[in-house]
């Protein structure tokens, strides 16, 4: 796979990136959510939101092929998800790099490029170049030779994003990248992801607790709560009528003067963490 190439070739019929039909997640004796039907197109920026433990990460595990659906189908580029798909760039949820791990950022990104290969390689030029390109794409060139344990939360998330981008994937899965970031860094990172999505025509799924900082960037939202999944454009899905109908209880979506929303009635506090 080349890094610089793979231009966007517009084709008349774009295959869906993700198609879920009557998808059931979890295990037979422990269903997490059921009856999810949605499609995600190429180049869409999608937020996956919902309360803690609702099964947001489970969706990622299904896409990564780390878990099988309990029912229904999920397709990734028209085929079943399988482990080790080079088309996916994944940033798992994690809190901190161990403070003793004194490894420079470039090495981590470099290893994400060639770490799956067995054997020794004396000349690492292509890999290092790819890693530098990825670091540049996330505006972290200056961090290349800094040790991971010396980086701030926001800087680390940039490096993790570069680590995911280095193999030039067409789908990004970002699990809670905004956790532990203050509002300004949160916005910086979202801008960055948005730039990547728009400039490379990459599809990004981003798990978050709070939808508000994301609203201005999003194409779609996947809302997971109480064992059910609602998907669509934020304005269409996140309304009192749609959510109330879906969940069968009265749910209110409140708006404040700045356009922020809060979802009341399904579980408290998840709107504004």
């Amino acid at each position, binding site marked *: 796979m080349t890094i610089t190439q793979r231009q966007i070739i517009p084709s008349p019929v774009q295959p869906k990136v993700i198609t879920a039909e009557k998808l059931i997640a979890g295990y037979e004796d422990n269903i997490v959510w059921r009856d999810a039907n949605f499609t995600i197109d190429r180049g869409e920026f999608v937020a996956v939101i919902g309360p803690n433990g609702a099964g947001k990460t489970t969706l990622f595990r299904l896409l*990564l*092929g*780390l878990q099988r659906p309990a029912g229904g189908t999920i397709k990734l580029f028209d085929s079943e998800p*399988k*482990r*080790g*798909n*080079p088309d*996916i760039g*994944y*940033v*798992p949820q*994690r809190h901190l790099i*161990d403070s*003793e*791990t*004194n*490894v*420079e950022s470039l*090495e*981590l990104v470099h*290893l*994400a490029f*060639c*770490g*799956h*290969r*067995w*054997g*020794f*390689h004396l000349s690492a030029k292509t890999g290092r170049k790819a890693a530098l390109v990825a670091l540049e794409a996330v*505006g972290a060139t*200056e*961090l290349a*030779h*800094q*040790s991971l344990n*010396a*980086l*701030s939360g*926001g*800087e680390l998330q940039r490096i993790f994003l570069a*680590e*995911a981008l280095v193999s030039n994937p067409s789908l990004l899965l970002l699990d809670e990248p905004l956790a532990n970031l203050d509002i300004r860094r949160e916005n*910086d990172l979202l801008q960055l992801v948005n730039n990547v999505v728009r400039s490379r025509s990459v599809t990004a799924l981003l798990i978050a607790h709070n939808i508000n900082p994301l609203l201005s960037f999003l194409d779609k939202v996947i809302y997971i709560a109480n064992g059910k999944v609602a998907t669509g454009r934020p304005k269409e899905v996140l309304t009192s009528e749609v959510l109330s109908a879906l969940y069968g209880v009265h749910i209110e979506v409140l708006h404040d003067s700045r356009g922020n929303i809060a979802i009341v009635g399904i579980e408290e506090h998840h709107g504004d963490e």
Partner: protein
Amino acid sequence: MNSLTFNINLFAALQQMFQYQFMQHAFEAGTLVAIIAGIVGYFVVLRRSSFAAHALSHIGFAGAAGAVLFGISPVYGLLLFTTVGGSMMAALSPRAAHRDVHIGTVLAFMLGIGVLFISLYTGYATEAYSILFGEILGISNSDVLLTLVAALIIISIIAVVYRPLLFASLDEDVAEAKGMPTFLLGIIFMILVAVATSIAVQVVGVLLIFSLMVTPAAIAQQLAKRPHHVVIISVAIALMATWLGLFTAFYEPYPVSFFITSIVFVLYLLVRFVYRRIRPLKVSQASFQNAA
């Protein structure tokens, strides 16, 4: 080493030392062990598995004591017990490094078995002593050969798994998602530690294994940020401590392992408390963030 006096002419001193075959063997085995321990030790530190490595050496103690009881070379007992024990640790819990309580329970039990074997053995108590604290000056020709074979095996395995093992140690979740065999790599890693421990016990003994398997790599990690640089520095430290320890012990009537552990510890203190203060300051992070 008793009545010998130190010759200020280094060449003559070395010549004098290598007249003795046991010194030759000690240097050969010590060099091999230092190289292996320095390399494997980096992965031990990176994976935060130093407790597991420590435990493996205790499991090895039971094996060594058993071997002594049956009249065979302790290193075979060590190899058998540590390899089986290491694979089991990796197989039972993929993230064994963090299961301190389980590992601790098993290691205490294994040490108990070792004590039983030693008490059943009617020979000299020095056998137990040399397993616990190392007896590099008593290494035989065949021990050196076995050490060489073990070292070559470890180096060839590492040459193959170097990059995947490094990546899986740094970022296990992403490695798993990329379809890398993280479970298998965990088992391979523990087997590497097992074999490295078994041969290192000859030099520093079961109880002092940390001084070669962990401390040199921990020091090296403070001095470099790129994995292969860390590995090279780690090997250099282990080699220097072993050679210097052997050299000193030739003239002074104290155990080699005491010198090795002391040298490594002094280096650790220096790097930990002196180097950290004098090393150049990092580029200001605040300025970068503002620019971005």
